[in-house]
């Protein structure tokens, strides 16, 4: 794991593997994965999770208005049709997309025997798939926001 975490700087690993290059010195040396892909995926997973949670609370309540009256529901859903909310909706889909893809990465780290070994690569695969997903969604969403 020396090449992944930058923790080990001492003698070669006990298994005699001398091919491992000494890790590049970094100002985060001595920490497990601070500042690396592992930390940022964790931070993003938390931030997106909390954001989606608070949207979910609002979304259950706004949908519950269908039980009050058609006018009440239409009035509230009308506020979602404002362009500013359209950008919020784009951010929501982006957050859900990251949380979903990184969630699959977490499941692979937990259940796949090679998961921890490839967690950094999988983070960049998550980012790549996320960019592709948004490349499909955002243009369509912008057309909807700016169409009359």
């Amino acid at each position, binding site marked *: 794991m020396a090449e992944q975490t930058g923790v080990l700087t001492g003698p070669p690993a006990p298994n005699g593997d001398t091919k491992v290059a000494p890790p590049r010195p970094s100002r985060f040396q001595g920490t497990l994965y601070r500042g690396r892909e592992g930390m940022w995926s964790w931070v993003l997973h938390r931030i997106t999770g909390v954001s989606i949670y608070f949207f979910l609370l609002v979304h259950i309540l706004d949908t519950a208005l269908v039980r009050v009256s058609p006018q009440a529901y239409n009035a509230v859903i009308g506020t979602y049709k404002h362009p500013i909310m*359209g950008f919020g909706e784009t951010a929501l889909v982006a957050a859900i997309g990251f949380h979903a893809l990184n969630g699959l990465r977490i499941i692979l780290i937990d259940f796949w025997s090679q998961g921890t070994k490839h967690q950094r690569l999988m983070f960049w695969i998550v980012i790549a798939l996320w960019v592709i997903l948004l490349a499909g969604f955002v243009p369509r*969403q912008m057309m*909807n926001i700016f169409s009359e």
Partner: protein
Amino acid sequence: MTSSTIEAPRSPRPVARKRRVNWEKWGWLYMRGSGVLLIVLIAAHLFTNLIAGQGGVKAIDFAFVGGKWSNPFWKVWDTLLLWLALIHGSNGMRTIVNDYVSNPKVRKTMLIALLASSVVLLLLGTLVIYTFDPCPAGSLPSDLPSFCPAQ
């Protein structure tokens, strides 16, 4: 034969404890199981509501919801979404509260608030889905789905 006393071991024999349900383990598993299901549920939810219709969210109104919820398929779909997503989210928030709130009283209060709001929203949401009337009396016909009888 001389009798010798054997010292009692330093650690007493552990009292056999009842095997308890490992809730943390089941919660951990739930996050992964519900997570995979939610990817499918939310993908279809977003596709039918934001992509498939004309104009995205602009196409959503009472008549749109009425049309969807006159189909039992979408009622079950949205019920699954409600329960799986809200429990997944509350359990995630529980983890975050446990991580950052060090004062035990504040922590307990927040966990209770989290549990209470989740129970209320689960009951409210389920009631709304299964007592929903797509053609409520006394509404403007222009607000209602096209299949509603003229009033």
